[in-house]
């Protein structure tokens, strides 16, 4: 059985090596390209959202490369994500592929996740199942930590691409750290690497909080590498949604990290009083948080027809009006062009710089 799991940001880096060590024959899909998206768009329902289409393209390419089993997380929630697997399986079978499809139907329950891991790997004992699962989560958190460092150093770097190189190196180091002890050793090293990058210390870059639907936020292919682009425009990104936070809210593997969903829910009160699925509550709550913290503006990104984020985008445009806070909502789908994105980003960054210059925003 050659198992494949669709990509989502750096997630595959977190689990591939660990699962391979435990006897799972992993076949990650090739990195998403325009062809991936084209395949997805061709076979998906017209109004399916962008993550669905990219995932479907991932699956087709992985099956073409010899995978014969797919793991797709599922669930029951107001968002369409829980139903992805069913529709994707149906489409792939129609195309004539033969494969085994497994879904974890309750990704919120720890026992379910451990069950999935024991099912796909040769691991027998429950303890080993838990230990593997939490190692994967810790690796995910480490990758997120490295990305956060990247956000800080990227706008300040003196030599172009320095920070990107260090990030790549860090990802490789985390990928190789296949035990808890190695992982803990590697983290200080990564921090040292970032600190060694020559930076412009006098620069106080414009800050932009990036919020929105989690897949589009963390998957550079889906958002045209928006974080790198912002970094190159000398903008410091403050990302509001992290995959490790999403996982931590459910499984509490980092006991000292606050439950972000609960926190956002508290912050959003008065604007969105009940979570409308997906990341809607995080988007609303953290927009308010970013404003309080003096972040210059918020960039809200979502896939076209994303239901929870449409609710959130309506509400944050009210917040923007009420509090005179710059918010830019951008919708991503297969029709969006890179030039369009860049132009809008540049205009937004110009606006923020002027506001700061005129002393409207803090700092």
């Amino acid at each position, binding site marked *: 059985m050659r198992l494949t799991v669709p990509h989502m940001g750096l997630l595959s880096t977190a689990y591939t090596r660990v699962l391979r060590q435990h006897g799972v024959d992993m076949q990650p899909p090739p990195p998403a390209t325009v062809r991936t998206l084209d395949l997805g768009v061709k076979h998906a329902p017209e109004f399916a*959202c962008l993550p669905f289409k990219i995932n479907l393209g991932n699956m087709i390419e992985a099956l073409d490369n010899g995978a014969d089993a797919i793991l797709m997380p599922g669930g029951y929630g107001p968002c*369409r994500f829980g*139903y992805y697997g069913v529709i994707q399986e149906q489409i792939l079978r129609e195309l004539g592929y033969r494969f085994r499809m497994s879904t974890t139907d309750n990704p919120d329950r720890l026992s379910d996740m451990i069950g999935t891991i024991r099912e796909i790997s040769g691991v027998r004992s429950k303890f080993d199942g838990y230990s593997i699962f939490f190692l994967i989560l810790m690796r995910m958190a480490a990758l997120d930590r490295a990305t956060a460092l990247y956000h800080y150093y990227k706008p300040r770097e003196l030599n172009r691409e320095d920070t990107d190189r260090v990030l790549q190196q860090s990802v490789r180091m985390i990928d190789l750290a296949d035990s808890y002890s190695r992982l803990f050793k590697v983290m200080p090293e990564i921090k040292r690497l970032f600190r060694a990058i020559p930076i412009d210390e006098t620069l106080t870059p414009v800050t932009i909080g990036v919020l929105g639907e989690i897949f589009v936020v963390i998957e550079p292919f889906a958002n045209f590498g928006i974080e790198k682009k912002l970094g190159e425009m000398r903008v410091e990104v403050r990302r509001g949604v992290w995959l490790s936070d999403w996982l931590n809210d459910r499984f509490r593997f980092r006991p000292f990290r606050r439950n972000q969903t609960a926190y956002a829910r508290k912050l959003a009160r008065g604007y969105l009083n009940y979570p409308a699925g997906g990341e809607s509550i995080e988007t609303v709550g953290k927009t308010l948080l970013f404003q309080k913290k003096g972040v210059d503006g918020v960039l809200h990104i979502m896939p076209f*027809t994303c239901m929870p984020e449409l609710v959130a985008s*309506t509400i944050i445009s*009210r917040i923007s009006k009420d509090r005179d806070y710059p918010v830019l*909502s951008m919708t991503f789908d297969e029709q969006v062009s890179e030039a369009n994105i860049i132009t809008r980003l540049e205009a937004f960054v110009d606006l923020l710089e002027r506001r700061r210059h005129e002393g409207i925003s803090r700092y």
Partner: protein
Amino acid sequence: MKHPRIGIPRGLLFYSYADLWMSFFRDLGCEVIASPETNAEILKEGLRHTVSDLCLPVKTFLGHVAVLKEDVDLLFIPRHVSMEQESYMCPKMIGLPDVTRACFAHLPQVLDPLFHVKQFGDKAADEFTRPIAKALSLSPVRTAESFRKLMSESFGGTAERYRQACSVLSEDTAVPPASKKICIGIIGRPYLLFDRYLSKNLFSFVRKLGANPVSLRPAETEIREAMTIIPKWVYWDMGKEVVASAHVFFKDDRIDGVINVCSAACGPDSFTGDLIRKRLNQRNKPYMTLSIDEHASDAGIQTRVEAFIDMIAKVTA
């Protein structure tokens, strides 16, 4: 507040629960008014107040709020999260009160009780009526009782049965009679089907063409049966009903063709539409999806329906 005027926008779940809501508030001694049926003016108001690409029914709903807000003391916009265990409403319904507040700068007080069976189980009705009682300064116990009584009178009492409280708001829909006419099963969400303006008078148009339009609200057993055919329980409350009614129509020999009316870019329908087309239509009955948005013209819709019925007539003749 004694005897306030309560306004209910005629949109979305109004088409499912209007009778229940109206008689509930009347029993509490309030004056209830609903906005008029959708017209061009209301839709225009809705479009003017929407700030993002929300779907047509939500935009229309906001138009209804706009025409209603000046005349009432309280706006009743309930937040329906789940109607039974293992189901959810669409996120836009869950966020509806907040979206409404975000779209208007000045609104009367919004009454947004939470209906959430997945979380509160049999207590959902009490949780639902508590904020209403508070806003109207009534006894919470008596209010809950009166709501339960209304539910049980017609529908057996438990919170789960609330879903059944739907009253189809159109005299247009009939049970298939044993006639020689072509029968067209029409499926879709009540707030789109039975809003005559949004559905471009689909029912009467089908009738004018000499065919019989049929729509139904699936029973619990039919929903369960339909769910056994598809691989995973459809967890959207209304999506589930659309799927189940499609199943009933595809099975029924008296129905000659099925039209699925959905709004463009409807999230759940983009998936359930795929299921219906590929899984449920095993006997290959004529099936068509009509997707409607604010740019849909009467003529465009009518041409497609006409062609669809002509095709069926040719096949059956």
